[in-house]
């Protein structure tokens, strides 16, 4: 027995919920996780500069690109590489081809108390591995995180990839990898330079910058999506402006033209 009143009531409620839920959304920027701290500061400067606030959503570049393809309403996409931007351009979802906004670096990181001593050639890691002293080692998932791809390249270059395989923990994105690297269960990991320079991670351990020649350059490209509005355009321009550049440099990014 289906009391008709209940059905009507349910429909009315649905409508009201739909109406209510359509709250005012602000411009949303999708950014690669390595920008977790840097972009927050840029956004604060953006607001201080008299612009309306924008929302930041972080994730791995590959995941964000997929979400955009599935209809996520981001207006600017700041990838940690160029290929994911290209995918969107090819799919016709962007206003233009985008612009290079930064070049990133990776570091090897060891939390305080870890047996690992970070060095640029990963010699200590190799030695530790030989001794059987590596419990777990954290990197971002190479499948969809550019920083993970870079980590894999470095490890392969040093001949450590195959032996390290069983001990790898893969972070969903580079911040999750950093999480794993700092929680103490892992001896360390290869994470983003921009993350270790942040106040949150600065005092949690030691790191060594890995040579750029060990991996393909982390050329980070950003692009505006078709739906980008005025606020998005403004932010897009702001990131490239002189006001934002010092912040990016502070977080270890190399800027285009340097």
């Amino acid at each position, binding site marked *: *027995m289906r*009391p008709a009143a209940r*059905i009507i009531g349910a429909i009315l409620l649905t409508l009201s919920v*739909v109406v209510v839920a359509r709250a005012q959304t602000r411009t949303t920027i999708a950014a690669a996780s390595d920008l977790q701290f840097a972009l927050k500061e840029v956004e604060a400067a953006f607001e201080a500069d008299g612009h309306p606030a924008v929302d930041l*959503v*972080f994730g791995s570049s590959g995941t964000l690109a997929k979400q955009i*393809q599935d209809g996520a309403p*981001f207006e600017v996409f700041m990838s940690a590489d160029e290929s994911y931007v290209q995918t969107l351009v090819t799919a016709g979802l962007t206003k233009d081809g985008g612009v290079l906004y930064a070049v990133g670096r990776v570091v090897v990181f060891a939390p305080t108390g870890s047996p690992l001593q970070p060095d640029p050639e990963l010699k200590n890691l190799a030695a530790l591995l030989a001794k059987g002293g590596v419990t777990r080692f954290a990197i971002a998932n190479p499948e969809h995180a550019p920083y993970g791809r870079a980590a894999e390249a470095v490890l392969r270059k040093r001949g450590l990839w195959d032996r390290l395989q069983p001990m790898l923990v893969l972070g969903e994105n580079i911040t999750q990898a950093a999480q794993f690297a700092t929680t103490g269960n892992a001896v360390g990991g290869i994470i983003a330079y921009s993350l270790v320079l942040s106040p949150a991670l600065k005092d949690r351990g030691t790191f060594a910058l890995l040579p750029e020649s060990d991996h393909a350059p982390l050329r980070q490209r950003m692009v505006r999506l078709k739906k980008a509005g005025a606020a998005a355009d403004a932010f897009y321009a702001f990131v490239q402006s002189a006001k934002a550049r010092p912040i990016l440099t502070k977080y270890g990014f190399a800027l285009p033209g340097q």
Partner: protein
Amino acid sequence: MDWTALGVSLRLAAGTLAILLPLAIALGRVLAYRRFRGRSILEAVVALPLVLPPTVLGFYLLISFGARSAVGQAFAAIAGHSLAFSFQGLLLASLIANLPFTVQPIQRAFEAIPTNVRDAAACCGLTPWRAFRAIELPLAWPGLVTAAVLAFAHTLGEFGVVLMIGGSLPGQTRTISIAIYDRLQAFDEHAAGVMAATLLAIALGALVITQTLARRVGRSSE
């Protein structure tokens, strides 16, 4: 404490209850009282979200309602925005995920009403609607509250599906569980801890309520 995120979670839970409870009452009653072919299949379908990993649900939702699907595009044409990565999309996912949490307790509650009580109600001259309101509903009440509390708590804690089809949009799809995840990734353990403790308290409260209700036989009413 991310109040916006809590607000999204509460709106999601409230919306789920508002739509799902009447449906669950109707469906639970049919499953409790009618014998028909395909009844077991229907019960299995209802129970499915219990055993399905949220990623499976998220996957199928993306395929069926994402921007690349026919339904998704139709919705976008009407509503002006995509179904995935919107509050409405979360609501839809939540309705599906909470189906067993609402239908099953309600179905059990209706089943627990002795047949001779329902027969007596009919023989008293009570129309099916009056019998439902005056006899069945009061007797099934504890089951209804259990369903509401379970669905509420479960929605508050929903994570996997929201992660897959939500996009963590503040004010829209960034629920409190996503916010916790977010804060952790930003190494803001304090904020994450506050929100986690809040959710824990809510979950405990929900369980205490359902346990207390499970002991009650019925409720007086007219």
